Every structure is written in structure tokens, then in C-alpha cells.
């Protein structure tokens, strides 16, 4: 689908303490048919933050998609968003950030409005085809 002249999206990162989800999600990304994608998996937000902290200088944020769970030990997804804000708006606006959660509660959904740099809220379970659609859409945006 779409033009393959320019492949923008290179890396997908998942931050979720749910080990089973990490396995399925990782398999989904690996099976993405259009172009190869690198997958980073983190079981908690602290490790993920540390990764971005180190890579920040030689990283093209527009080539990254990050999926973050809300309910995690040590640090919730929202607390990670608070930390991410320290990266500055230039970096965050280019970065593609999605919240993934099993919570259908309104209060959880509405909380993304506190973080203008978050691109969306995805309800679990994650549908493989919809995930692929999203990646294609982001890749075609220029």
C-alpha cells in the first residue's frame, strides 16, 4: 500500500508491563508486510525513559512510534509523559506517541488532553489490521 519511495517510520517502541502483550505485539510488528520495522520492548517506563535519554541526540523523532501503557508498576504511563515533557516540544511534536490501555473509563481517556503532544488513545485489545493502518498512515504523512 502507499508509496514505498520514502520509508519514514523506522522504529516502533512498546512500553507495557504485560509480558503476553509484549510477545503478541512484537510478533505483529515483525510481520508488518510493507517495510521492515525495528521493535523496542520495555516492561517499565523507567527503562524506556533511560533508552530515550541516551538516544535522544542521534534519533529522528519523526521516525519513531511509541505505544505506552497507563497502568504499570514503579511508574505509570502518565508519569512517564510528565518525564517526557522535559525533552521539549520540538522533539515531542515530531515523536508519534500513543497511549494503549485496557481502561474504557472516561477519566483515563480524557487525561490525554493534558498532554498535547500525545497523538491518540488506543483501547486494548489491539487489532492487528488497525495497527498496520496506523503505521501506514503515519508513514505517508510528511
Amino acid at each position, binding site marked *: 500500500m502507499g508509496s514505498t519511495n520514502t520509508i519514514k517510520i523506522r522504529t516502533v517502541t512498546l512500553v507495557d508491563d*504485560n509480558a*503476553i502483550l509484549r*510477545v*503478541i505485539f512484537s510478533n505483529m510488528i515483525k510481520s508488518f508486510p510493507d517495510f521492515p520495522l525495528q521493535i523496542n520492548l520495555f516492561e517499565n517506563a523507567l527503562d524506556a525513559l533511560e533508552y530515550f535519554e541516551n538516544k535522544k541526540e542521534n534519533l529522528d523523532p519523526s521516525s519513531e512510534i511509541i505505544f505506552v501503557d497507563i497502568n504499570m508498576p514503579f511508574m505509570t504511563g502518565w508519569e512517564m509523559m510528565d518525564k517526557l515533557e522535559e525533552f521539549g516540544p520540538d522533539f515531542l511534536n515530531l515523536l508519534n506517541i500513543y497511549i494503549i490501555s*485496557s*481502561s474504557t*473509563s472516561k477519566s483515563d481517556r480524557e487525561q490525554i488532553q493534558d498532554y498535547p503532544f500525545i497523538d491518540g488513545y488506543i483501547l486494548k*485489545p*489491539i487489532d492487528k489490521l488497525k495497527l498496520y493502518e496506523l503505521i501506514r498512515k503515519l508513514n505517508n504523512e510528511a
Partner: protein
Amino acid sequence: MEFHNQALDKQNIFLETLGFEGLVALDYEGHILALNNQAKSLLPFDKIAHKKLHEALTFYSKEGQHPIHPNELSFNKTLETGAVQRDIIYGITTEDNTLIWLSFSSKLIPDRPDIHMLISIQDVSPLVNENKKLLDSKQELQLLITSLDDIVFEVTKEGVFKNYWTSEPDLLFYEPEEFLNKNIVDLFPSEMTEKTLPLINKALTYNKVYHMEFPSPFDTHKGRWFKLKIKPIHSTKDRVAVVVSDISQKIKSLEKIRYNQHKFNQAFHFSGLGISLTDTQGYCLDANNMLSKILGFSQEELSCTNFFDYIHPDDINNDYQQRQRLLKGEMDSFTLEKRYRHQLGHYVWCSVTTSVVHNQSNEVSFFIVQLQDISECKKNLEILERQKKEIEIVKIDLETKVRQLEEFNHIVAHNLREPVSNIHMLIDELKDENRKEVNKEYFKLLKSSNNSLTDTLQELSEILEISQNRNIEKVNCHFPTIFKKVYDQFLAEIYSKKVILTTDFEIEYLQYPRIYLESIIYNLLSNALKYTVPRVQPQIHIRTYQQNNSTLLSIQDNGIGIDLPKFKSQIFMFRKVFHRGFDSKGLGLFITRYQIESLGGKIDVISKPNNGTTFLVNFLENN
């Protein structure tokens, strides 16, 4: 001189015949020709010899005592016009400078060649002086009358007005000419004269003073009140002095006093408040019916009552002190709530206002004490207070319930839906997956997800059981015994970590579900043993004590502590884990909190990172 004397001597015989009056003979120009002895004694002879009489002396007028021009003198007029002048009085000064009054009569003597005119002189000083004195006293009297507000009439025995004195003629009902010499009967209405005339007669008969008061009988002085004072005039025997005074002002003030008295009486007797007048010692001087009703004592019983004997002992001191302030004049009144002992023995709550009444010399005469029965109010207030407390408890309970519901919502949203969504995704993947290896792995994951779901459901039902189990049986728990049991379960860990564990059970017993208390101590001790600082000897102190009628349990450690500003809101939440590297499910504190709260207690935490943690359980068992 000689000649004149002789001439006078010759006429002496003639002159003497006129009696004791002084006689002076003048020629046609007015020169004195002769005087008799009487005249000599009256006039300064040395000054007037050979002179014209009217020019020789200064004559003064009777009215005003000013000098009269010689031409104006009466005898000079006779000299000039020949007219007879009779009894004209002039004053002259004598040698010793006193003024004497002389009466001059003068006439021409045409039938005698040697004398032209004759003047007879009489000393009238006593008369004139008497007269002057009378005039003076009349004037004084007039002055006196003008200074009075009253009208004085002279009235005959029959009631005829003969005379009047007043400073303000406006006060008279009639013009003077209309009432003088008229009878009171003809002037005033009979209802007034019927009383007045007998009084006049009585005053004369008994020689006494009589009074009467009457309202104005005429429209011109409508609304005014007068007082008559009828007094016999001693010198007359048949006349009285009637003094009329306007007493409207006095009547008005009397009326006002009467009105005020009436007002107070009405207010006192028909008040909705119990009112008593009490002396400074607290004895009842007077009391109204409402007071009898409130306190249950009859008027007779109240009349010999000292209220201090019936004031509640707890209220007496305050009341006494306030009364002292009234007595000292520091205030005029005070209001306080106090209890009186009812005749039947129970106490009645009253709102009592006490005010002070002073006499003319500003000493305290008595107190006015007003009571309002507020027992019903007090009772309702107590009910309200109790209901408020109950509502407060219900509110706390509801707040806890709401918070718990929110937590359940959170648990369902995350902890329950998470494995469900895993299962959902795994089934989806398995549908399209043909690779055997992957299929095998996904089945393993499916099983694991299922287990996780079952575990969570199990935990949830445990928690629900706690929050439903309000009426779980409470037994007399012995803290040291329960602690010993828990301690034994951690024995291995305590030994391996070389923990210094101290206890101080100031409170040994608590009415509580034994399983809960065990679980609470187990979870808190487990926490304290788990989050220790490496290479630091762990110290744990467990203590029970009393505070505000409630039992408290504290477990203090010197472990790694918690960043409270950051985590306090989550510390007792379901499956919250704050520390990495420890085997923790984040369930213990949540369950502990649930157990404590389900029985009305509270749990709190005091901690700083690297500074140890103290968990404080307030059982609030008496609330």
C-alpha cells in the same frame, strides 16, 4: 428786717387764728412780707427773707422729685393770674439736707392794703412718705405677681370677683371688665361652681386652705388642668384669695407615669416570658404567672424564694459574677443560658436576661429577671447535634464507599480487562497462525493469561468479602499473642537479616476480628522486613497506645522509605508497586487498608526516602 418782723407781728393775731398751718404773706411782686412761727419752722427763714418765695428756694415735684421751674409753681400762678391754688405738694430740702413735703395753698387778699397774697403751708411729709411706701410696696407686689405663674383673685363669700393679679392676662378666661364684680356662678359651668362655692365657705368657716383640681371648662384652654387654692384673707373675714395654677404639665407627667406603670403592669403580668423582680440578694420581690408556670412554683411559694437556691450548681458562679458586674455598674443588663430546678426536681434550661433598676440616688433598687424556657430548643439542639454526628459518620462511610467504588472501577479497567484483552488478542492471532511453534507458544500464553485472570478474580472476591463483612465477629484480641504468632511466621527472615525487633504494647487488648488483626500485623511487618536498606541492620519497633479514646498501632522501620509527596495517593492502592528489585505484588497494603477501613479505622504513613517508614493504624474502635 425789723420792719418786716413788726409787720408780721402785727398780723400774727390774724395769722394765728388759722391754726397750725404755716402762713406766708407776699406783696404783689412775690416778696415775702411776713411769716408766722409755724412757717418759720417749715421754711429756711434765713434764705428767704426779703426775697421772692418762688425764686428763693428749689421746689421738687412729688412725682419723680425733679426741680420745678419757678414760673410753674402754684403760688406763682396765683400771683400772676389771681386763681386760688389748693393743696399742691412740693418738696424742699432742709438745712440738714433732708427732703420734706409741704402742701401749698395760695389766694390773693384783695381787702387788705398791706398784704397782696397769702400762702398757707402744711407739712405733709408723713403722708407723702406713707403714700410712697404704699406705692413701693404695691410695686413690689406687682413685681412679685409677675414672677408668679399663678393668677390670684380676690373673691367674696358669695363668689363675686373683686380683684385679680396676674403676670399673664392671657391666662384669664375673661377680659377683666367682664368678670370683675360678677359672680362665679354666672361665669363658670355649674359642675365647677358647685364644688368651688362650698370650698370658699368652708375656707372662711374653718379658716383653712382648700384645694381643688379641674380641667379647663372652656374650649379656649382645652386639655389644660388647673389647681385652685382657696385661702381666707384674714383681714376681711368674708373674702378669700383664690390662687389658680396651671398644672397641665404636672397632670401630663402624672398621666405619663400612670401610663408607664400600666404598660409595665400589662407587660409584666401578660408577658410570654417569666419575669421576676428580685432584690440584690436574689430574693423574689414579685413574679408573674408565666414564671410560676415555667418553674412550677405558686406565687406564694415564689414570694419567699431565693432564686440562687434553684439555679443549677454549674451555672451559679457565672450568674453571680455577672450580677456583681451589674451591681458595680459595669453594664446595664446581661443574658445567659442557665438551668433552674423545677418544683418537681428536674432542671429547666432558660435563657435569662437580667437588668438592673436604680433609685434616684443611683443605688441598685432591684433586678428585673426575664426567663425564657428554652428546654425544647436545647433538646432539639441536642438531637440536631447527634444527627449531625450521625450524618458525619455516614458521610465518612459514604466517602469511603465512593472511593472504594472508584478503586473497583480502576481494578476492573486495568487489572481485569488486561488479561481479558490478552486472551482476546491471542485467540485472534491463533485463528490465522499456522506455524506450530508459534501456536504452541500462544497456547502457553493463553493459559498464563487465564491464570492471571483467575488470580485477579480471586483477589477481587477477597476484597469484596472484606468490604461486605461489616459484622464479622469481634473478639478480645491480645496484641502480644497475635504478634507472637506473626513473628513466628517471619522467624527465618528475621534471623537471616539480623533484624532488631522491639515491641511496646501499652494497650494489650482490642475488640477486633482476630483474622483481620493478624493480617494487618502480618502485612505491615512483611513490608517493614522487605524494604530494608542493604548493609544496614534493620530495626523495627512495634507499639500500641491510646490517643483520643482510640487505640493506635504503629510499626516503625529504618528501611528505604517512600517518596511520599509522589506516592502517598497511591500507596494503599491495588497492586501498586513503587520499588524495583523486590518481589512485590502491591496487594498487601491495599488489603490492609480495606480491612482497617471496613471496621471504621484509618491507616496512615509517615516516611521519607532513605529515612525509614512508620505505618500508623488508628482503630477508632469507639466511634
